[in-house]
């Protein structure tokens, strides 16, 4: 529970700070964001690589991924088509 709250709080603090600072000057966050992403993905890879059980089950994870992905995309497209008809969106 604390974990979820921590994550939510850091996101919200970021948004509020951004709203506060938006009139001040232009920030370029792309480099520091990129660095954070690379470190994060590296440590996720490390967590996966250091878990032998997980490595052994990679094949079934791949199959599961395809099923979840195809269902998600199917319903996304179906709902967009439906919503466009309902609200008459060009």
């Amino acid at each position, binding site marked *: 529970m604390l974990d979820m709250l921590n994550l939510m709080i850091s996101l919200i603090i970021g948004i509020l700070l951004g709203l506060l600072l938006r009139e001040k000057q232009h920030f370029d966050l792309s480099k520091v964001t990129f660095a954070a992403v690379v470190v994060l993905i590296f*440590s996720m890879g490390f*967590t996966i690589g250091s878990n032998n059980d997980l490595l052994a089950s990679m094949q079934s994870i791949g199959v599961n991924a395809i099923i979840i992905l195809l269902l998600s995309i199917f319903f996304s*497209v179906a709902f967009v088509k439906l919503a466009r008809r309902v609200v008459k969106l060009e």
Partner: protein
Amino acid sequence: MIKYILTALILGAVAGYLNNNFGNLIANNWVSGYLFDFSLIVLLFLMGLAFGLNREAVAKLRKAGLKILVVPFSIALGSILGGLIGGLILRINVFASMAISAGYGWYTLAGPLVGQLFGVEFGALGFIVNFLRELLTIATISLTVKIDKYAPIAFGGATSMDTTLPVIVRYSGSESLIMAFSSGFTLSLIAPFTITAIAMLA
């Protein structure tokens, strides 16, 4: 971008494997725990900051009319429903599969965030699902645009504000630019919230 991400993932996996199986040079938790948590918190803060600072996105949204928000919300609902049904079919934790689908293609966020909330196995699944969503959007766009003008935007999910935007505009036409951007922006903004909200329900 994609090649750096995959390089980091592979290097991380190799380092983790070697460290775990050949003499634990450092405690696994040092990377999987501290470094991971720290960079995830920093990334979420930076994403929030980028959203808060983005003046143009809100202006564009307002100009296009709030009616276009039905598109990202339909995509969000459809994705989460797909995750629910997928979870039921596969007999896995349905909250985890819904949270994974609520990444809307944003794999650098969804993988680690779901991993943090539901465990590393679902983190790996979340990374793969969302990574493939971006690839599939680009690979199939010449066909999907025939289903519906906005089908590529539905495929792209959160990625339609940046990585898949150029391809979408090329196939769906320049008038879809605002829609693609607004939809991707809205989905990117709600992704971390929906993922954590689903985890709170679990």
